[in-house]
């Protein structure tokens, strides 16, 4: 079990590949994804390190905050020379959590002022990405 309550299921790598439709071993670690990612300042693992962790079946990767910081901007996807869609891998990793009922945001933790200040486009997107 990972530290944050996630059950590490057997065949996790295969599940991530199946959900994302991606082959993680296509990645040869050039680092282009991390070089262009606008949000790496906030990540505890760089995007290419996330893929490396998956390749090595190092499940500490699942404890990384990178998947929750990734905003699916597709900068990495358009630049990857090997055609790996990292945004889909990040989504698959989030889905592993969300399908175990481990939500990452909760509307109950937000004040009415916070909610009323935000546009619905942000709320719908956030809850689509971070709740199951």
């Amino acid at each position: 079990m990972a530290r944050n309550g996630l059950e590490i299921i057997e065949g996790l790598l295969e599940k991530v590949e199946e959900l994302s439709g991606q082959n993680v071993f296509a990645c040869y670690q050039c680092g282009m994804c991390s070089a262009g990612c606008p949000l790496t300042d906030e990540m505890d693992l760089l995007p290419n390190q996330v893929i490396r962790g998956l390749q090595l079946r190092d499940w500490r990767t699942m404890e990384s905050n990178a998947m929750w910081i990734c905003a699916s901007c597709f900068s990495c996807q358009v630049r990857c020379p090997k055609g790996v869609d990292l945004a889909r891998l990040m989504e698959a990793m989030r889905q592993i959590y969300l399908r175990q009922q481990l939500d990452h945001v909760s509307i109950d933790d937000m004040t009415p002022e916070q909610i009323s200040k935000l546009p619905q486009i942000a709320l719908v997107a956030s809850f689509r990405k971070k709740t199951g």
Partner: protein
Amino acid sequence: MDGLTYFPGCSLKEEAKEFEISAMAVMKALGLPLIEFERWNCCGTVFSLTEDDLMHQLATIRNLIRVQENGSEEIVTLCSMCYNTLKRSSLFVNRDKERLEKINAFMDREQAYEGKVEVRHLLEVLRDRIGWDKVEEAMTHSLEGLSVAPYYGCMLLRPREVGIDDPDNPTIMQDLIEALWATPVEFPFQTECCGSYQVVDRRELIVERTHRILSSARRSGADVVITSCPLCQYNLQKTQSELKETIPTFEEMPVIYFTQLMAVALEVDSGELPSPLLAGLAIEEGVGNGER
């Protein structure tokens, strides 16, 4: 039909009213009015990226069915996120007939989606159908002297299969700015993500992105930034007051919709514009707001 089958999406009825007001006025002036179709629903804002998730395609496909019921084969959006989600969904089901059959079987009250609706962004219509020369001809108030930085963000350009222009070096908004006789300002952050929905639980991250993006636009000489995404506009405009609290030297930068810029040049209703911008445009309050 004389007009475009228009999908507003949620933001254009609330947070981004100015976008709709200005786009409606501009397209009427250009002779190709936006006609909102009936019974549209939320697009879901983000395209589901998992292979097995058909459920989250229903909202988008239902919209395409409504368009089909309307006898149209095209849907035009203003919001970049709606554009991306609708376009990706249409490709997703067209690529695999089994997916489409499952979705059609599930939605038994609607007609079956036939896979023929083309999803277009208004900028594409302006470039490909109306043409920049026609836009220039329609202009009555030149924007000469105004420096405008286009902020493309993510959803108009990426992934490549749905992008309306080159993902790394787009020109579509520059071309629009030039057609209005304003000066386009290129800056290094024009296609970099603003942080998107992270504003919900990591607002400080967005404030930081706003600082970087708008300071860069300022250094490049921009008077105003234009965008086509209501979430980019919210993030970049609404976090500036918070940014000023921590960095008092930060100079505020108006962030408006591209259609508002067009409305000023065509002297039609632009919706509300930030007042420092009105001063920069050397136009009186009320001009461009349809109150002349």
